[in-house]
């Protein structure tokens, strides 16, 4: 290991060259022990990965832990990674599985947390018309409130397909299921979110949709 490889922040010409590597080149370099190449992959994908995982978990802090764990798992499994597949799909698959496992393990705890969080949200939340819901954070909070009505698989499929804009086939690869299953999950997720939104937060719907 050279001293240059111990530097995490890009700075040298070598580090900058790593930034321009495509995923496959970076993975090959990382397999050969190049930490800078792997760090480039972490920088490239951790933002999007965190956004997706945070929406699946409805928890920003836990999502960072999952992102970190997913990258370490990916590094541990680099030898098994098949270059015919997209690195990002493989990485999201690892992260989705970790997030789904976490959701399953915290079901009861989450219910208690949700009850309190809903109360706080409804007391402090304003009720602007839907067209004015441009504030992303407000929508994120609303989604976090409602997503607990979905199963872990429905959450993951909805987030990757609808919020992250992935192709159905890529979502299926990431979740390890068929495209038909993904479509079913997304369909069910939409239906449940519609119902929960109307039941719990009708003030966020257009007036014509309110009961």
């Amino acid at each position, binding site marked *: 290991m050279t001293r240059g490889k111990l530097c995490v922040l890009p700075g040298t010409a070598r580090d900058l060259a790593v930034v321009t590597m495509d995923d496959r080149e970076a993975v090959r370099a990382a397999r050969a022990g190049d930490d800078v190449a792997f760090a480039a992959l972490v920088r490239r994908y951790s933002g999007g990965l965190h*956004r997706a995982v945070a929406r699946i978990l409805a928890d920003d802090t836990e999502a960072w832990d999952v992102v970190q764990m997913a990258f370490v798992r990916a590094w541990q499994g680099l030898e098994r990674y098949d270059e015919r597949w997209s690195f990002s799909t493989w990485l999201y698959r690892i992260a989705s599985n970790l997030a789904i496992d976490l959701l399953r393990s915290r079901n009861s705890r989450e219910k208690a947390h949700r009850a309190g969080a809903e109360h706080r949200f409804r007391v402090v939340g304003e009720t602007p018309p839907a067209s004015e*819901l441009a504030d992303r954070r407000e929508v994120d909070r609303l989604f976090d409130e409602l997503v607990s009505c979905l199963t872990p698989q429905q959450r993951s499929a909805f987030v990757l397909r609808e919020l992250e804009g992935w192709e159905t086939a890529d979502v299926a690869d990431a979740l390890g299921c068929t495209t038909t299953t993904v479509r079913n999950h997304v369909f069910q997720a939409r239906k449940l979110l519609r119902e929960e939104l109307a039941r719990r937060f009708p003030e966020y719907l257009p007036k014509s949709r309110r009961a």
Partner: protein
Amino acid sequence: MRCADMPELLDSYLADVLDGPRRNAVRSHLRTCERCREAAIQADPSLLFVAASPGEPDPARLEDVTRAVVAQIRQQRLQRRLVHRQPWLAAAAALVLTLIAVAGWRLLAPGGGSEPAPAVDAQVAEAPSPPPRIEVDMAGEGVRVYQYADQQDGDTAVTFIVNPKLEL
């Protein structure tokens, strides 16, 4: 994309029959056009979440995660190498301990030394000697492994791994 095309495209979007580029175009349009967003949410309230712009990640947080991940993989790599080299380390430790024991026995055995040892030296020799220490510089890694072992208890040793270059 024209607003006039949106009603038809929205139906196709919800039926999941749009190709990737057109699907992304619909999503982008919903994020920028307030009127179409309102109409979309009316058609299906779950589109409220699709129409919200994704947030930008905090660069400082990304850098923190990158550092944490790299530190973890370096630690794991080091652990793997130590486990891999354990037999060699054990053999080296055994050899050094044997040499120390032989040297000590020759010095302390009657007639082992060339001259009688002074009384003060004998007292020092009877006092517990510090445990032997092994320093191994792992080739090319700049990592030092310090192993402390008690002569009386060959099964127990404490190993410290020090990598002066590692920035955690």
